[in-house]
């Protein structure tokens, strides 16, 4: 079952704690079975737990996610002539529907404990369940006798008419979205659900389907393993009592086995320290964030950083890098602190310092920032007339206009002497270098004019000739 997902400012899915981006691909289309859907062109993201689709044109409305646990099986169709590579996902049977239909219990004939009938139970086909209390197999009669006990007509009536609030048990009118008594969201869950049928096809129009499929398989395998691991650790299978009685070759084997197990235990203990350290590291980062000292946080590095490995395809990597850079600026506020403009080499230094590991190359950074404008991100790359690149916030007023506006509003005494690069740097928060460059380019365009003095060049609003 697909759900609506929340997005960050850079139009990527908001990741939960411990969730990491594993792969992403652009220009992907979702098919409902064999038919098209309204999810026509967008990004597909693969994280540890989810598969997310973010629409290109309307990311707010058409962004959905799917829990990996919902995926029953996957199938890969390679690119052939005009048909692009596709991944077909078969989803597990819709749980929400089951919840509504199966709501029955059976009573154990031995201990009279009333057990929930498992959701996937089909009468006559599935294996008989065991009693949770005493572990005895249920008899067919017992299930027949109790499971068919349908909810009473009165209950059906009240269900269809009124919604019972799960928090305060007040029966609300069915058309209400929030509980009348306590304000609990009654329908939020159902509204966020998006149904795309039981099989969904992902069509990769700009390629990259093979890599994505590989990653998907890997992640699915991993998530299965972790589930298996957690179930193992919760029920330890080590039974020492039974071992002591055994003799012969079997006992030798058992002894060797137990050695292994012990060795494992030692290893687990040893690495437990490391894990503890890791969990501490997370706490430390949280602590730093709580203090709001961004410089410290930057020196510690950002939590999830994308690398060439997590992004399939070269272009995808650059797109992701641009998005992450936007998020980085958004969270660290570095760009706004610098007056909304930084030279590319400054950005390179600050950004790589915050990454700490998996540094990006200057070329990668430049390519990524070049793409930012096309991706609709709030930053862009601009070449100053000296050839130096700067990364700046996207503003609707051009820089020279901002300069002229500010300068024409100056006090008369200051307007008479003009402004220097230092004045501009102080006012806009730019570095002296950028201030000088911006003044010169505005001058070159004829918006300002210069007064060359032995001490410094001072700039004035152009009164000699108004530029066309």
């Amino acid at each position: 079952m697909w759900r609506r997902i929340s997005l960050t400012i850079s139009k990527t899915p908001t990741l939960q704690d411990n969730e990491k981006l594993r792969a992403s691909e652009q220009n992907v289309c979702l098919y409902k079975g064999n038919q098209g859907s309204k999810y026509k062109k967008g990004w597909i993201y693969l994280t540890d737990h989810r598969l997310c689709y973010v629409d290109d044109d309307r990311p707010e409305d058409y962004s959905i996610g799917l829990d990996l646990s919902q995926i029953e099986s996957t199938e890969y169709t390679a690119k052939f002539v005009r048909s692009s590579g596709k991944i077909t996902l078969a989803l597990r049977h819709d749980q929400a529907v089951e919840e509504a239909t199966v709501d029955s219990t059976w009573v154990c004939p031995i201990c009279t404990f009333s057990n929930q009938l498992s959701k996937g139970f089909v009468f006559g086909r599935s294996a008989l369940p065991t009693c949770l209390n005493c572990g005895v197999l249920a008899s067919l009669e017992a299930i027949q006798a109790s499971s068919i006990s349908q909810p009473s007509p009165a209950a059906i009536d009240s269900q269809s008419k009124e919604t019972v609030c799960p928090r305060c048990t007040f029966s609300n009118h069915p058309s209400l979205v929030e509980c009348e008594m306590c304000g609990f969201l009654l329908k939020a869950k159902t509204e966020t659900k998006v149904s795309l049928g039981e099989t969904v096809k992902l069509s990769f129009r700009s390629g990259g389907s093979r890599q994505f499929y590989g990653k998907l398989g890997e992640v699915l395998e991993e998530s299965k393993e972790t589930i298996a691991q957690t179930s193992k650790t919760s029920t330890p299978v080590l039974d020492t009592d039974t071992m002591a009685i055994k003799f012969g070759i079997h006992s030798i084997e058992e002894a060797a086995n137990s050695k292994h197990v012990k060795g494992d235990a030692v290893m687990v203990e040893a690495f437990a320290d490391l894990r503890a350290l890791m969990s501490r590291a997370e706490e430390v980062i949280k602590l730093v964030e709580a203090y709001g000292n961004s410089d410290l946080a930057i020196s510690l590095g950002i939590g999830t950083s994308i690398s060439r490995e997590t992004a399939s395809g070269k272009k995808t990597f650059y797109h992701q890098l641009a998005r992450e850079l936007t998020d980085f600026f958004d969270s660290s506020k570095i760009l706004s602190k610098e007056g909304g403009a930084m030279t590319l080499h400054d950005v390179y230094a600050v950004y790589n310092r915050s990454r700490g590991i998996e540094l990006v190359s200057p070329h990668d950074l430049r390519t990524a920032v070049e793409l930012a404008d096309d991706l609709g991100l709030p930053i862009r790359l601009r070449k100053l007339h000296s050839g130096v690149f700067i990364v700046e916030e996207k503003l609707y007023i051009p820089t020279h206009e901002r300069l002229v506006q500010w300068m024409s509003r100056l006090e008369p005494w200051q307007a008479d002497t003009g402004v220097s690069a230092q004045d501009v740097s102080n006012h806009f928060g730019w570095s002296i270098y950028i201030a000088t460059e911006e003044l010169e380019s505005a001058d070159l365009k004829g918006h300002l004019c210069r007064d060359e003095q032995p001490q410094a060049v001072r700039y004035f609003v152009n009164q000699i000739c108004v530029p066309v």
Partner: protein
Amino acid sequence: MQGTPAIYEFPPFFTKQINEQTWAAQKSNWEKICLNYCKGINQWTLNKNSPVFTNSRIQRTLPAPVILELFNHMVEDGTAAWKIPNEEVYVYIKSPHLLASELVSWTEATGHSGAVITLFELTNGDLSGLSSFESLDPGILSQVLEIVFKQGNATEMREDGEVVGLKLK
């Protein structure tokens, strides 16, 4: 200086502007100021050290290379001619052609046809109605006379090989 436009008080006006359009506007503004200045004090030449290029009130002086560029522009425009190349220019408050035709029409209007006048008389302001020729630079005067002689409206009178006067027709 009296009667200068407001732009003369604008400090960047004394620096060559890097924007082409602005620089063009700046040159034509300077040209006007130079012509007005020369007209005001009835001076027909300008050089790099002329006081017009210094505004003591805002402590700005137009640099010499820029002045030369300005002179070049004026020469191209026909409002000036080199007297000493890259040093001094004649400023044509009135062009030599205009002066020549002024002289001819003056001759006809005042009935001086056939009269002989010396160059001294011309430039000393002795002749009423010919104020343009008063204290006219000898260089420009000779240019004017050349035009007049060429048109056949007067003949030259020489003494020791130098033109000292003219006989009007």
